[in-house]
């Protein structure tokens, strides 16, 4: 019998950080006093009606464009009807047929292997408010009452739905990570999983090999990190496989990821399929996104993470460094500017992703809080290339620049770290050392190349460590081979 294979689809919700909410003028802001960012529309007072936010539409068009989707010229809003206290209208304005974007794709790389995930649709909807149940232990069943905060009610929400193309938990995680990078690069959301501005639901089923029919799937919610996305899917694949191996049956249901216990738990929702009675939102006209708008968004699209990584590798960084730089806009920006100012890309990439990152972590600072500029990196790079600074010393200088002690040259001079690379002077020093150590030189000339280190060391000692060791080593070698 063929091996078990998982079939995975991911639904992602992304809150857009627009100036105002999806259908009213209230601010999109977090951490404010409950119910302060509300108005008749997002509280669903009688008579209040929605007006779509153009900035949010622009945001979803950006996402759809980055995901290589077809943007529908006319797209429709629908009412999704269900009663829930944190949904003030008791229907959610969402999309059904003719969403803003359809038929997209996203290429990810897992273990060096490229893999394409199909994007079924990207649609626009609105977020709900938040309920807090107040009672003995905070559990809904024992709660004596609930408090409602509608600050989040009506915040623009984009839902991105994949085809069931994903086969492993690692791919799912890579998809989630790449999507998060894209959303951040587009600047439409901070996409923070722990704060809920990006949320994943994982649809998982297993089957006997790639030719078998899809199995019954479950939907796992409450996954609030990339790591738990991978863990939850791994757990669910194992659980389903075990159930089926033991002759059991998978129930189509919603499951809840318990981070502490590392398990998914059935939410025991009664499995009558919910009828949302979708119908076209009569308070709004069809949304028109004309060709000019689509073209403008395409033209203004920033360099996407995959494009950026490819470019960095092209400049000479290794794949890992490229990924680190592309993942952090501040570091990537510094890198780009430094290279533009003449820095060696490979060298600059390593400094930034290693020394600078270590410094920032140690000092608990962000890049802007340091004194380091792209010009500094370029200067440092030039000093190393010119032989003025050893690569060991360059790290000390870089840390001092970060700490605000001055420019690389100022620091190198102040710390007396400038290398001696005057060949006339160095040659005289080399000759002097050879003259003092004729026995050792004979061994070297006889082919004992280990002796090079001895001579370099002697020269370094005579020059107080300031000689360029590469240059000295070359001279000694040349003289030995006479």
């Amino acid at each position, binding site marked *: 019998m063929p091996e078990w294979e998982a079939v995975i689809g991911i639904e992602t919700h992304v809150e857009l950080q627009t100036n105002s909410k999806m259908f009213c003028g209230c601010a999109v802001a977090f951490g404010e006093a409950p119910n302060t960012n509300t108005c008749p529309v997002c509280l669903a007072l*009688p*008579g209040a*009606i929605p007006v779509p936010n153009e900035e949010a539409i622009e945001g979803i068009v950006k996402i759809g464009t980055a995901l290589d989707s077809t943007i529908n010229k006319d797209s429709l809003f629908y009412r999704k*009807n269900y*009663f829930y206290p944190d949904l003030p209208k*008791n229907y959610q304005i969402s999309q059904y047929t003719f969403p803003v974007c359809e038929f997209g794709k996203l290429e990810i790389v897992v273990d060096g292997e490229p893999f394409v995930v199909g994007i079924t649709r990207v649609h626009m909807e609105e977020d709900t408010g938040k309920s807090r149940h107040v009672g003995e232990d905070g559990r809904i069943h024992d709660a004596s009452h609930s408090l409602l905060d509608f600050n989040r009610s009506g915040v623009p929400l984009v839902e991105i739905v994949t085809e069931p193309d994903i086969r492993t938990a690692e791919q799912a995680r890579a998809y989630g990570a790449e999507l998060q990078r894209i959303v951040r690069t587009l600047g439409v959301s901070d996409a923070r999983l722990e704060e809920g501005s990006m949320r994943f639901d994982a649809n998982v089923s297993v089957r006997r090999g790639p030719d078998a029919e899809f199995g019954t799937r479950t939907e796992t919610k409450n996954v609030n990190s990339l790591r738990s996305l991978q863990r939850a899917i791994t757990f669910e694949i194992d659980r389903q496989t075990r159930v089926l191996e033991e002759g059991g049956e998978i129930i189509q249901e919603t499951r809840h990821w318990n981070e502490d216990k590392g398990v998914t738990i059935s939410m025991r929702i009664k499995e009558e399929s919910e009828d949302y009675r*979708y119908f076209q939102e*009569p308070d709004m006209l069809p949304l028109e996104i004309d060709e000019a708008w689509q073209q403008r968004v395409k033209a203004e699209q920033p360099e996407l993470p995959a494009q950026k990584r490819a470019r960095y590798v092209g400049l000479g960084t290794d794949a890992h460094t490229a990924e680190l730089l592309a993942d952090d806009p501040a570091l990537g920006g510094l890198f780009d500017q430094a290279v533009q100012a003449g820095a060696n890309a490979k060298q600059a990439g390593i400094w930034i992703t290693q020394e600078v990152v270590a410094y920032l972590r140690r000092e608990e600072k962000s890049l802007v809080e340091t004194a380091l500029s792209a010009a500094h990196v370029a200067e440092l790079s030039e000093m190393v290339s010119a032989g003025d600074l050893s690569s060991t010393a360059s790290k000390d200088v870089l840390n001092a620049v970060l700490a605000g002690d001055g420019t690389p040259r100022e620091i190198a001079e102040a710390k007396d770290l400038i290398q001696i690379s005057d060949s006339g002077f160095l040659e005289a020093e080399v000759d002097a050392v050879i003259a003092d150590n004729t026995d050792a030189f004979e061994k070297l000339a006889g082919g004992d190349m280990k002796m090079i280190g001895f001579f370099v060391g002697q020269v370094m000692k005579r020059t107080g460590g300031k000689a360029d060791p590469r240059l000295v080593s070359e001279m000694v070698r040349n003289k030995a081979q006479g």
Partner: protein
Amino acid sequence: MTDLADLSIVEAGRQLRSGDVTAVDLWEAAATRIAYTEPHLHAFLTVDREGALATAKVVDAAFRAGEDAGPLQGIPIALKDNMCTKGLATTASSRMLEGWVPPYDGTAVANLRNAGAVLVGKTNLDEFAMGSSTENSAFGTSRNPWDVDRVPGGSSGGSAGSVAVGSSMGAFGSDTGGSIRQPAALCGVVGMKPTYGLVSRYGLIAFASSLDQIGPFARSVEDAALLLEGVAGHDIHDATSYRGEYPTLTDGLEKGVKGLRVGIVKELMVDAIDSEIRAATRAMADKLSDAGADVVEVSLPSSEYALSAYYLIAPAECSANLARLDGVRYGNRVPADTTDEMMAKTRAAGFGPEVTRRILLGTYALSAGYYDAFYGQAQRVRTLVRQDFATAYEQTDVLISPTTPTTAFEIGAKTDDPIAMYYSDVCTIPSNLAGDPSISVPVGVDTRGLPIGFQIMAPALGESMLFRVAAEVERLAEFSARPSLAVSKETV
């Protein structure tokens, strides 16, 4: 001497500007009329005496300072109680919203305040505008000023009655399937439904969003046009608000109908329409013809399905629109152990039987497995109705028909038969489905002395033409009868 309460808006405006009367005088005349008609009529749910007087005083000061915000400044105007008024209770005639005071003004209301209108109060309606008689109001039925044992029509029956008796000089209602024109016809006043999108719906408690439209009641066609001008205009708070150039309303009133092509709708002149009403409609058609119009018979073949389509589309939309009334954030609440139970009990207690019927009907029509046969089919009929109108307007400038199948009926006559009640809107619904403007003008009385309305319909944004023909109908009808309540002042 004419009682000030009986002045037209145009005449009152003239006298306000000449200094012969003040806004306070007009308000006091309306208040006096309210005092002796309300016990019989019950047109109002709330009369805002303090607010009206305060506004009238402000307006008089403005007049003295030479400030003039236009024809509605100082005019006493009544509002249907489904239009949100900041600081003034707005109930939609439902227990659900009893005592609810909106924290905001709807756009039409704000426009009226900016125009210096004196807002006298909130008028009765069928609960959430669902009905044709005001008998579905949770706060009592309004009476017809021509015969207090009869209904004023609905759902905007209170606004119609108020204008008919002079307790306001003009009023606003909302028309989803005829809720302005039908009560206007039954109360012998002018009632007009504008093109969908001409007046903002922001702050109008929604019944059926794709059909609802705010419009005026007046005692003359010109007054109706002035009232509409006071509220029409693009609104950033309503995504369906019209964005283009707005039609002019008053400059064609004197042009007459010579050379105009007028289509009399065949399907609305059938036996189910009262014979006296058909005769009055035919007589007016003949007068229009004599006045130079080219009157032809036209057909709207799908109009026979319009009523059925309407009673699927409107309930479907209302089933979602009324979902927000759940006792969670505002309005009345019936306490219970769980939130679900609280919402269910609140809604069961808060909605009257007709509203409940329509919510159930609409929920059913949208359900999986039924959607296509009911809601989907109704939407297809709606498209056909639009196409029928388009075809008819290829050969006509306006269409005419009766406004209602009967004149005012007795209270209780149709309350046990929803279908018979629904049929009250058979002539008015097609314009709502098409989104077109339409007006009812009184053209006479039947043998019982009850007023008969004459409906004129025009293509979308055809308000200029609509008011032009309506003004000619008004002149030709020479309708001067007044309801008994309005003229019985001395005897009360």
